[in-house]
């Protein structure tokens, strides 16, 4: 395995070197295009076009997969691993986390209030509304950020974002939202800028291995990278948070982002950094129309 590993690294490094030196020589010199000022731009329309392209890309690539089934991640496209997954989903280990999450969710803060006081509908069946663009603070609010904002508003210390209590609360909230359909909107220009920032991250190569999210999860999704089948990017956020057998525990989407970045030997960004939140915003919009099926189990 070590030799295989080394071989892969060498290949990828060579790729990376080529790509990087190409970057140097092929620098495009273009006049910056100045957009003619328009009265109103319908940003949602632009975004909807992107969503359409994204969906049809995966529909064309995986012809036997119904679009709504992409919520199952890699298990939508690979029958052999789907069988094992279904056996695990019969009684998945995240069930224990949902119970823990419920306990945390219902335990009052020092001021007597609970999480339910911070959320619409008492926090039940709201997962599909996250992340959203908050037009007052001009930023993307993810569910995890909202959970910690709720704590701080009620005089509690924020929780760490990757694993543990916060992930469990998120799991409980996701579970109460099962089968609700994601429909995340881009309300204005600032929101569109956040969306574009997330989109840019998605398509940008990074790390020593010089891979973008899109390289693995769009262009070559469905093919093998070592023993793994690369999951389609459509449906990435629907099953979050996720109990990964590799972790042996439940983690948030941020935990997975950081892991992915480390895999391509890029230094991960901090949890809930603006860029990661924008990436989650972009990715969730690309998965609009799919149902919440988090928490989920993955290999």
């Amino acid at each position, binding site marked *: 395995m070590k030799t295989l590993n080394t071989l892969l690294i060498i290949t990828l490094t060579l790729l990376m070197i080529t790509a990087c030196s190409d970057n140097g020589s092929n620098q495009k010199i273009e006049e910056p295009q100045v957009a003619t000022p328009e009265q109103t731009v319908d940003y949602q329309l632009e975004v909807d076009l992107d969503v359409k392209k994204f969906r049809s890309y995966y529909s064309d690539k995986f012809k036997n997969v119904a679009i709504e089934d992409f919520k199952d991640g890699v298990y939508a496209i690979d029958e052999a691993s789907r069988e094992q997954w279904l056996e*695990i989903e*019969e*009684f998945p*280990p995240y*069930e*224990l986390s949902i*119970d823990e999450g419920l306990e945390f969710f219902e335990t009052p803060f020092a001021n007597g209030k609970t999480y339910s006081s911070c959320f619409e509908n008492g926090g039940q069946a709201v997962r599909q509304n996250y992340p959203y663009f908050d037009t007052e603070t001009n930023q993307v609010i993810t569910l995890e950020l909202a959970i910690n904002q709720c704590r701080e508003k009620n005089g509690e210390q924020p929780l760490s974002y990757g694993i543990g209590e916060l992930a469990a609360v998120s799991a409980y909230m996701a579970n109460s939202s099962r089968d609700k359909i994601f429909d995340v909107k881009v309300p204005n220009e600032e929101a569109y800028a956040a969306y574009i920032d997330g989109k840019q991250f998605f398509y940008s190569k990074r790390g020593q291995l010089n891979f973008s999210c899109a390289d693995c999860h769009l262009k070559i999704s469905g093919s093998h990278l070592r023993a793994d089948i690369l999951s389609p990017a459509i449906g990435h956020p629907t099953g979050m948070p996720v109990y990964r*057998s590799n972790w*042996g525990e439940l983690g948030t989407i941020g935990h997975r982002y950081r892991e992915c970045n480390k895999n391509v030997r890029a230094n991960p960004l901090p949890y809930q950094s603006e860029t990661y939140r924008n990436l989650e915003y972009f990715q969730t919009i690309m998965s609009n129309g799919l149902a919440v099926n988090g928490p989920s189990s993955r290999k």
Partner: protein
Amino acid sequence: MSDTFKIKVRAKSKKGVVKAKLLVKHPMESGMRKDTEGNLIPIHHLKELTVKYKDETVFYGEFGTGVSKDPFVAFSFKGEPGDSFVVDAIDNQGKTGKAEVVIK
């Protein structure tokens, strides 16, 4: 660390046969893993689990470190909805888990 661990159970009876599925919250440390400082994490695994229905032992399992983290085990026995059964478990460190389950 707490002296007990959780056991979550689902049990449904169909035509007089109960399908019982158990999920045990347990780290199942193999004793061969190291922590971030390079120290060996002590072996810690589920050891025995007994299921009693109407004073009879319907299932008794012995487990080693070859069982996955958060162990899952399922089995079937003759039983009726509304009846209950008791699950008792112990690990190699003497910690215990217990669940009383009403069959659906």
